[in-house]
């Protein structure tokens, strides 16, 4: 009861063109940042290791290594502050959550590249 009403409310906050990317993709996330009156775009590059939630609460987690330290950032897919998500390369993965990457260091974090099909 009422679930369809929640969807109606969320509709207005959803992006019409949902950015396409998959778990294991290496992406550039372009984030709009307000500094005073000026708007600036910041880029966060890393591997998508998880996606969670539905509707406006759909989030994805991006992991990268900064100065030898693992850094993870969680972004809302539909936030207007996310200007663009660019897929740089795709990895071959067999699970939905890549939390095993957290225990890996150095060369072991690399994922095998997935070749896009010719039809793409």
């Amino acid at each position: 009861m009422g679930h369809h009403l929640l969807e109606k409310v969320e509709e207005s906050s959803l992006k019409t063109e949902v950015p396409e990317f998959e778990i294991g993709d290496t992406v550039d996330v372009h984030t709009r940042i307000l500094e005073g009156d000026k708007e600036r775009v910041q880029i966060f590059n890393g591997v998508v290791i998880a996606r969670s939630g539905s509707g406006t609460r759909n989030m994805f987690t991006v992991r990268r290594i900064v100065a030898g330290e693992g850094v993870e950032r969680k972004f809302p897919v539909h936030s207007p502050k996310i200007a663009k998500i660019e897929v740089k390369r795709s990895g071959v993965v067999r699970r939905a959550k890549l939390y095993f990457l957290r225990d890996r260091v150095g060369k072991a974090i690399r994922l095998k590249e997935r070749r896009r099909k010719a039809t793409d």
Partner: protein
Amino acid sequence: MAKGILGRKVGMTQIYDERGNAVPVTVIEAGPCHVLQIRTPQRDGYEAVQLGFGDRPRHRAKRSERGHVAKLSSKRARAKSATESEVASKADCEPKRFVKELRGSVEGYEVGQEIKVDDLADIKAVDVVGTSKGRGYSGVMKRHNFSGQRASHGVKKVHRHAGGTGCSAWPSRLFKGRRMPGQYGNSRVTTKNLKVVRVDADNNLLLVYGAIPGPVGGYVIVRETNKV
């Protein structure tokens, strides 16, 4: 009547405002409500408007509920109308599930009038009254956020107990208001001064900032706040 309406909690979600910030909102299916009765000082001793929300199928409604919203042709009603005494007017709508009165001036309201959510469009903030989720007979840790006792160091079987409740020879009794286990929840709760985020007149929806009391599907009273 202070501006208000009856409704039903649909659930919580988040939307984005014009600056791109996520806003936590509770969605309330508010109205349409019918004015079922007007309370006047002359007849009832106080002023209030009685609203009804949500239809109850006629075959499920009690006769008194049906008679409250529309005229029933009964022997008594006929006898009454024959004497030409004044009969209270009826809203002439379906029987209602949720009926509540809102106190305040009754000017501009009449029985049978429909109240919709766009009446609240120019309101900044509201109070929401609901019945909180029932938690039954609860201990002090859940009910009053006590800390309980230690897991070890000689504590036996009383890990979630309150500990001491009073003093000793003086005063030889407990002071009133001592917080103890008891019924928790399932009581009337008012959340005050919630910002109105959006009014969706097409779908009869009202979006308020933050949480409101009660379970999803619970009935609530929404009225203009006296704060601000």
